[in-house]
């Protein structure tokens, strides 16, 4: 009998050099793994540059064996990505890897402007419905009635507004070629989200327009649930609020 290796860390994965350890069950590791899987299957590891924002998503750029700007100023990931993409005349594949706060709270202006420009970058927003690194505060994607350290009585829309639906929001922008939302709470959703990521990166490879993928991601530390309970919470609470799917998939923008 011969023993062959079937699966381990993806080819473009690398052990994080950051002393910041990830929390047990935090699925940012899976988000980074998905990006590496998609990059490996598209064969673009040598030509991809990852820019991560401030927050838990920022740590993902430590886990990829690709050129990276790790943790750029908070909310400016799409601007830094634009700077790199323009500076190298569109040659590399540029990925902006953000959390929900970085992307649609402080970074909303940068995201909207990149979408208005149809900047040919791929934006990944890991949505864990709170500000992770700072201890679980309210985020734009926090669910109604969800308790966070700054909505101790649960998110009250009268005071803290309504959950943000980002891919749906980007659909009407002409410069947006792809907008989808995935999750990694089940193996099936893992494969589905990988398909979305590859489709998004392909839009950039084909130079069509901005591509955006949101990924629902468990945050046991700040949801105050065990990792496996978080998967259930995603299924029962998050996905009803944030339906999965492709909201836009344009082959051409004219």
């Amino acid at each position, binding site marked *: 009998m011969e023993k062959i290796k079937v699966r381990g860390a993806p080819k473009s994965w*690398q052990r994080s*050099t*950051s*002393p*910041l350890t990830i929390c047990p069950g935090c699925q940012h590791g899976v988000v980074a793994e998905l990006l590496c899987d998609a990059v490996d299957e598209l064969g673009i*590891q*040598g*030509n*991809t*540059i990852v*820019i991560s924002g401030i927050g838990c998503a920022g740590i993902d*750029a430590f886990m990829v*064996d*690709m*050129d*990276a*700007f*790790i*943790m*750029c*100023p908070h909310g*400016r990931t799409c*601007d*830094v*990505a*634009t*700077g*790199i*993409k*323009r*500076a*190298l*005349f569109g*040659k*590399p594949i540029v990925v902006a890897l953000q959390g929900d706060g970085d992307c649609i709270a402080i970074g909303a*202006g*940068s995201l*909207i*402007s990149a979408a*208005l420009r149809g900047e040919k970058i791929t934006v990944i927003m890991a949505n864990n419905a709170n500000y992770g690194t700072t201890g679980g505060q309210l985020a734009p994607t926090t669910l109604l009635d969800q308790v966070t350290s700054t909505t101790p009585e649960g998110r009250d829309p009268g005071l803290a507004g309504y959950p943000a639906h980002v891919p749906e929001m980007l659909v009407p922008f002409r410069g947006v070629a792809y907008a989808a939302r995935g999750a990694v709470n089940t193996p099936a959703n893992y494969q589905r989200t990988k398909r979305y990521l590859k489709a998004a990166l392909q839009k950039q490879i084909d130079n069509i327009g901005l591509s955006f993928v949101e990924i629902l991601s468990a945050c046991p530390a700040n949801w105050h649930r065990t990792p496996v309970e978080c998967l259930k919470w995603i299924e029962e609470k998050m996905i009803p609020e944030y339906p999965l799917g492709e909201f836009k998939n344009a082959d051409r923008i004219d």
Partner: protein
Amino acid sequence: MLRVAKMSQRILAQGNTAIGYGAVNAGCLHFFGYPITPQNEVIEWFARELPKRGGSFLQAQCETAVINMLLGAGSAGVRVMTSTSSPGWALMQEGLSALANAEIPCVVVLVQRGGPVQGTTQHGQMDYLSATRGGGGGGYRDIVLAPASVQECSDLVQLAFYLADKYRNPVVVLSDGLLGQMMEPLEVRTLDFGPLPEKDWALKGLALHKDGKRRALSCLAGFCFQEVYESYLDFIQHLDEKYRQMADSEVRYETYQTDDAHLLVVAYGYAARVSLEAINMARDEGLKVGLIRPISLWPFPSEAIRQGATRGGDFLVVEDSLGQLVEDVRLSVNGQAEVHLLNMLSRHMRTPAGMILPDIVLEGIRKLA
């Protein structure tokens, strides 16, 4: 002095457009900007000229985006710049401190206008402290170069790109609304400052790195990014050494008739041009007065000022603010001489177009020389 590599033509140009000629002659093909008076001619020049030269121009959604696009472009190893005025400059502070932490070179031209912040759309010199002390998360330094003519607007931008790459640090060129709008003859030339090391640290894509190792940059060096520096203080010590090197070797200033001067005027930018005029008139009246014109505002020419003080002369600082440059002069003089100030309250008109003019400086000189 300056080594001219290539001379192409002599034209009549605004200070603002001279910035464009300087930048492209320094090999800068990337510009990110945002409209703000009194420097709109700069971004308009680049919008016209860069595409023709194979470069890329982008007007961003705000100045905060602009400075972060510089962070991106600079990380990719290209020469990149922006131009702005006081309110835009205020929005760029965090980005500038991020550029300094990540050690990314770029050039930022600040065409000062009357302050505070919106203030007026005309000229002023009220960003001196903000430019030389830095307004972002603290602990960094930027070399600040101050042109006083249209020619210097072009030449100092080229020098700025050289120094930015030499030290892997942003460099600020501090102009103002007057210098930006006025027209003077400009020799369009390429200056050669010598060789610079390869930007091996730049982000290009793993496949393009001969050693097969990925490049990673961060503006969080010290907090969690340990690949280059052993500890936080190793990183800070590196910055300290870099800033000392800048301070030791990048001081630039000009003196005019200071050898026998009993009174030394200290002024930069347009105020220096005005003071020069006044000094010539005073010399005609037999008054022994000279000028020290800082060209690098940081590192400040404190040694030259101190030597002036030891020769027993007093100082008259002329600046179009309530008094900012005067602080550096007092620090350099260290109590060894009187330091007087002629500031923006001596403008010839109270409306925003008011300027400090030669005759008011001459009056000041007469009282002190």
